[in-house]
């Protein structure tokens, strides 16, 4: 399903992967609203329901994980980390339902990486104590390493987004090659490959994206 928008005399085509990404986002938003309502209505005298227990367990795990990898002063990033993880995980697993996986489009993964890049830069400026001192940090350890430092900083979002994009796209390409190769045998032979390329690779890449985000932010905020 593609949407074409006419802007003046030019036609802008929004690919279905971007639309699927928005759908995933809306579904997660509804889920968040449901959890919020349930958590507010809960009676503190009684034991919480199983659903709320599971949500609490997830939030607790992420909080502990953020403290162990980024330090206690970075606990305020835990909501962003959990949101990023769930969003990428659901996007990767969305391909299993027969739709185009949202993360197999480079514009989606690059925008995700740009958000992380923005957070890292803002926090780097904050922890350096001003824009001037932040710019001065590029001259360390030697002034003539300036182009190298800038290139190294700019390469982070590119490699971060290409990693997710390449893994998901190659998985879906191999699966489509497999389906055209197998023909009628596909329903029997394909499921194990789906377990590897969609589920294992999808969970792993979502974990790695958030893990690298945490490492970058922790590197930018250390005193």
């Amino acid at each position, binding site marked *: 399903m593609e949407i074409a928008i006419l802007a003046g005399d030019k036609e802008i085509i929004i690919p279905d992967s971007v639309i699927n990404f928005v759908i995933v986002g809306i579904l997660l938003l509804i889920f968040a609203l449901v959890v919020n309502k349930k958590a507010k209505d809960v009676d503190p005298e009684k034991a919480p329901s199983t659903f709320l227990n599971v949500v609490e367990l997830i939030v607790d795990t992420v909080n502990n994980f953020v403290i162990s990898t980024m330090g206690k002063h970075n606990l305020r990033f835990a909501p962003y980390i959990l949101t990023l993880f769930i969003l990428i995980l659901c996007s990767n697993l969305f391909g299993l339902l027969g739709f185009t996986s949202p993360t197999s489009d480079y514009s989606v993964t690059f925008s995700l990486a740009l958000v992380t890049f923005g957070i890292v830069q803002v926090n780097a400026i904050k922890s350096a104590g001003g824009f001037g001192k932040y710019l001065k940090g590029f001259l360390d350890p030697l002034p003539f390493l300036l182009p190298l430092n800038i290139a190294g900083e700019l390469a982070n979002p590119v*490699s971060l987004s*290409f*990693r997710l*994009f*390449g*893994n998901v*796209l*190659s998985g879906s*390409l191999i699966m489509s090659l497999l389906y055209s190769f197998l023909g009628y045998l596909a329903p029997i032979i394909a499921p194990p490959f789906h377990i590897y390329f969609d589920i294992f690779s999808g969970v*792993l*890449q979502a*974990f*790695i994206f958030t*893990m*690298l985000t945490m*490492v970058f932010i922790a590197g930018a905020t250390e005193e």
Partner: protein
Amino acid sequence: MFEGISNEAFVLGCSAIGAGIAMIAGLGPGIGQGYAAGKGAEAVGRQPEAQGDITRTMLLGQAVAETTGIYSLVIAIILLFVQPLLGAL
């Protein structure tokens, strides 16, 4: 030898060969990831109680080592499906 071939067919064929050559870069990440996994297995053998931390560090390192392979994959995919060289004809 090349007489019956149109320009487009020649560029497409060369693009396919180029994509295949680009994927030779998959060798490097394979060796690197295998080395990291071997070291991870060694570390778990020495310290079985730290398995969670070791696995996490190993996966992170492998993901970073994979970057060069992903770059070559992206180049191969661009050569095969976007076909930028056809526009240069």
